[in-house]
């Protein structure tokens, strides 16, 4: 039994009376890839938004990172506490270069403090140069090195999804929350992205993966949570969840 890196305890969230999350709990263990599946509107993305601080949960629920309570912290603080995420609607700085997008994703850069734009030039420059090397290496590994200086908007849709994943890697976060990383892209790119995700636990990272592509979930995840109407319906290995009568019933409905 490995350590738990992320705990979600009894989270609820209502929007105008609609319960997007209803007393939802789950845990992410070190080195796990946890699949989060369920019909549209089940509350999967809401869960990500609450865990990453973009939406405040209703009273009572808790989010713990490695045992310490981080409920309701601002999103930028959570991002600095070892959580990185991608967005379903692909958020990138489209006008800036591919390389700049990766560089922006590094945390705690001395050059991002105003003072250091004027002083400590050497230290700042060294760190920036190191980040550039690291970013270039990440882009090479992902096969995006040729596009490094193009604006991100020139990438294909699949390449943009790949780039958001590379940005998460640059964040050096322990926990990655990936929102539909392979939805709507060509099979080749899908394989490439799934291979990167499968490789994450070996680097000590833990992942929660939202995906409608059930094949991808079955191939990639160690455990799966099925949620519907904001609540957890079923949890277990991919096999167990797939054969759970409650899940089959929910899908038929």
């Amino acid at each position, binding site marked *: 039994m490995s350590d738990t890196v992320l705990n979600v305890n009894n989270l609820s969230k209502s929007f105008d009376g609609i319960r997007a999350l209803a007393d939802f709990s789950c845990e992410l263990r070190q080195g796990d890839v946890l699949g989060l599946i369920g019909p549209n509107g089940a509350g999967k993305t809401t869960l990500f938004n609450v865990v*990453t601080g*973009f939406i405040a949960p209703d009273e009572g629920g808790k989010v713990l990172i490695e045992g310490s309570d981080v409920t309701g912290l*601002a*999103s*930028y603080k959570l*991002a*600095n506490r070892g959580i*990185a*995420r991608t*967005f379903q609607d692909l*958020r*990138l*700085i*489209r*006008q*800036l270069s591919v390389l*700049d997008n990766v*560089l*922006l*994703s590094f*945390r*705690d*850069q001395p*050059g*991002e*403090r*105003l003072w*250091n*734009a*004027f002083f400590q030039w050497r230290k*700042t420059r060294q760190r*920036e140069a190191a980040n550039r090397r690291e970013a270039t290496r990440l882009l090479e590994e992902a096969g995006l090195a040729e596009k490094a200086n193009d604006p991100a908007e020139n990438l294909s849709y699949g390449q943009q999804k790949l780039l958001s994943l590379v*940005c998460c890697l640059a*964040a050096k976060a322990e926990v990655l929350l990936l929102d539909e990383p392979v939805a709507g892209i060509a099979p080749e790119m899908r394989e490439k992205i799934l291979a990167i995700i499968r490789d994450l636990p070996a680097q000590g990272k833990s992942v929660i993966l939202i995906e409608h592509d059930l094949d991808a979930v079955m191939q990639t995840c160690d455990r799966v949570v099925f949620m519907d109407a904001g609540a957890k319906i079923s949890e277990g290995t991919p096999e167990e969840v797939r054969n759970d009568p409650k899940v089959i019933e929910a899908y038929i409905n």
Partner: protein
Amino acid sequence: MEYLLHILILIGIYVILSVSINLIVGYTGLLSIAHAAFYGVGAYVAALMALSLHSPFLVNTACAVVLSGVLGALVGIPSLRIRDDYFVIATFAFQIITFSVLNNWVSLTGGPMGLPGIPQPTIFGLQVSSHVGFLLLVGVFCALTLWVTHRIVRSPFGRVLKAIREDEVFAQAAGKNVAAYKVLVFVIGAGVAAVAGVMYAYYISFIDPTSFTVMESIFIISIVIIGGAGSLWGPVVGAVVLVVLPELLRFIGLPNAVAANLRQMIYGGLLVAFMMWRPRGFLGEYAFQGKEARG
């Protein structure tokens, strides 16, 4: 010759104003219409200190910058935490309030009568009295403003500003304290605008509130839009164009009353034309339009 120097000095003052508001509007994507207010705060602080305390130029400049920056923080901290729309309204309110204070606090600011007789500045024992002297002084501060802006926008700090302009959610998810960056940039812009005010007060040696109205703020923003938002040299080009253009009208020989109105019409026409056909201005990399429109 003096006339030419006068135009160059004016261009210099507007370069300081437009380059500094470009940090806020062009690089960070925040619309502030309070720049003339900070310009006025700088001018009045320097003028009042020079007139009543007889304190040296550099001390007055430093005080003007600090006070303007503090006011910038007071406006920015509450409004920038919420939404950009509120920030626009807050800056507009600050602009109106500042003008009212300058216009009505007669015992301090002289009200509509203004403050005449601001003494010529002395720097390191040298008195700046000629047009050439003022041009050098303004030139030095222009260069300083451009250098500071250059350092900021080329640094990782500047990269975060552009990210905030394009997609705040991305910046937050990447761990950037977006509100703090916005406040910092607004405070820097306010401080630099005060420098332009100090230059203006010493150069003209008379100030009154009509130089620091909301129309002036809009004029400064026009310089940025026409020159090119989000580029270092765009506002410089814009300042040259918008300061020189109305001067050319003088040579056509129109009566003054007509020329003044014609000037306003030309500004309006230019703005509309640029928004329609060249929203990036002469040199800009950032199309000046609503965030929604850019999707």
